[in-house]
């Protein structure tokens, strides 16, 4: 089975994140940059499918030069190789343009199975799997908490607002995973050493047959016109429980008309 895992580098969600003053894009210098957490679950799932069914696992990333660090980290978990779409023209890409680029790159890789995270912690747009499936004319199974592969047939279980559902499709398909699906492995020392020698292919948008004007700021379908820091919430009253903390709490709730 030929598997491609989408990996996005994002600013660490436990740090203070910002947009840049000039062009309203993510300030990659303000927080350390890491693999989008849910993508680690996608990598783990790919390695499990590979262990059971054979084949190759390729990491696909679209992102700036610095993203190569996350690519090496991803490879150290065990995948065989990586493709990095790297091009100045991509700066400022909206989700629609991102999906165009990733779909074109997937087209050159011919995967049976595309695995990705259910959402990225920075944009949280939560649409990539369906956008890619729409462009490639293949199925999307999203938000998987369990994936079963049986030959060419894929079955997932996913949480819904009401409960859960079981959904099936045939390969090729895009499957996005939630962080409930598995427990990602830590790279071993051997894995880290091996990752240094694994092939990473760099592609420009021109290599993918896409014009620079279709991506980045030039091709954006939406634009951020302005951003500002939300005034931080200031803590209000804080009282120590002296045996009447519960009553005091209710007094506050009553003063705000919640009781």
């Amino acid at each position, binding site marked *: 089975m030929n598997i491609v895992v989408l990996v996005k580098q994002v600013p660490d969600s436990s740090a203070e994140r*910002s947009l840049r003053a000039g062009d309203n894009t993510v300030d990659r210098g303000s927080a350390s940059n890491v693999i989008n957490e849910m993508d680690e679950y996608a990598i783990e799932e790919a390695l499990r499918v590979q262990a059971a069914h054979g084949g190759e696992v390729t990491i696909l990333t679209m992102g700036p030069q610095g993203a190569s660090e996350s690519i090496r980290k991803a490879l150290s978990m065990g995948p065989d190789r990586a493709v990095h779409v790297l091009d100045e023209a991509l700066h400022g890409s909206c989700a629609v343009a991102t999906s165009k680029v990733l779909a074109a790159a997937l087209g050159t890789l011919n995967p049976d199975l595309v695995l990705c995270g259910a959402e990225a912690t920075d944009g949280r747009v939560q649409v990539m799997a369906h956008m890619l499936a729409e462009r490639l004319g293949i199925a999307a*199974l999203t938000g998987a908490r369990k994936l079963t592969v049986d030959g060419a047939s894929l079955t997932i279980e996913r*949480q819904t*607002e009401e409960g859960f559902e079981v959904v099936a499709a045939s390969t090729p398909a895009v499957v996005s995973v939630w962080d409930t699906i598995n427990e990602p492995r830590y790279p071993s020392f051997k894995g880290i050493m091996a990752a240094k020698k694994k092939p990473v292919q760099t592609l420009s948008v021109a290599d993918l047959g896409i014009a620079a004007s279709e991506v980045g700021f030039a091709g954006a379908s*939406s634009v*951020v016109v302005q951003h500002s820091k939300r005034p931080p919430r*200031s803590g209000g009253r*804080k009282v120590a429980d002296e045996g009447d903390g519960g009553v005091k709490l209710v007094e506050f*709730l009553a003063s705000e008309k*919640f009781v």
Partner: protein
Amino acid sequence: MAEVLVVVEHSGGEVKKVTLEMLTLARELGTPAAVVLGGPGVAAPLTEKLGEFGAATVYAAESEDLDGFLVAPKAAVLAGLVRSVQPAAVLLGSTQEGKEIAGRLAVKLDNGLLTDVSGLDADGVATQVVFAGSTIVKSRVTRGLPLVTVRPNSLTPTPAPASVRVSAVDVVVEQSAKLARVLERKVEPKGARPELTEASVVVSGGRGVGSGDNFKLVEELADLLGGAVGASRAAVDSGFYPHQFQVGQTGKTVSPQLYVALGISGAIQHRAGMQTSKTIVAVNKDAEAPIFELADYGVVGDLFKVVPQATEEIRKRK
């Protein structure tokens, strides 16, 4: 005035609150028209409520094909409708399904898409709150019509009765949209509590609650306040409470009138899901817990003493 299409979120034959919010918002932009996508007979029980909140037209697209597959058929029908009615804007709920339909629609129409929108001006400028609630972004679609997903609890829905015209939409779904078949759909009993993302009061428990059994304390307080129950990731990972109730970066985003955090430290990823709540109250035994930095009212104390006393006090006052 041009129509504004509102894709209806519904569950168990009832219109969800976010839909009423979207209809309220749509009135500022044009004439609201509701779009119901689902199996045969799905639209009828929803129509009256939709009219009450200003839908002049209900586009009813009903077919087994819309129910038996993931969102691709719904996106296909909606794309057809957008092409024929040329609306001023399309609004969907910022839920998993709403976003997924919107994503496919954006690709089909080569149209921009804005997600998690909490406000939309008549001139198409949207407000998004990003990065764990720390940053406010104003943005607009520059290619195509304003296609946005609206975050639940972004505004107060107000009725504006309209006489509804129901218009049946022809549903023709290509084989290529029927690739992800739903084999089974399990509805878990949700009880009497309001839905987490729509509730006006949310009471959440964290690792400090200590066990699944102890979550009864959280539930009891939630029930007395007419609220929903939430949980931190640590509580979910420890098996105290089911995953669908997780609040935060990788869980639900809630924006209630009142958020009560019990035994939750207030990690940035938890804040990501609750920071825009109107009033925040916390009980934590650690006076230095970061949750107190955003709490309007905080009690430093043992939740096993404070919470039972609070529930008793509320009962007394009722």
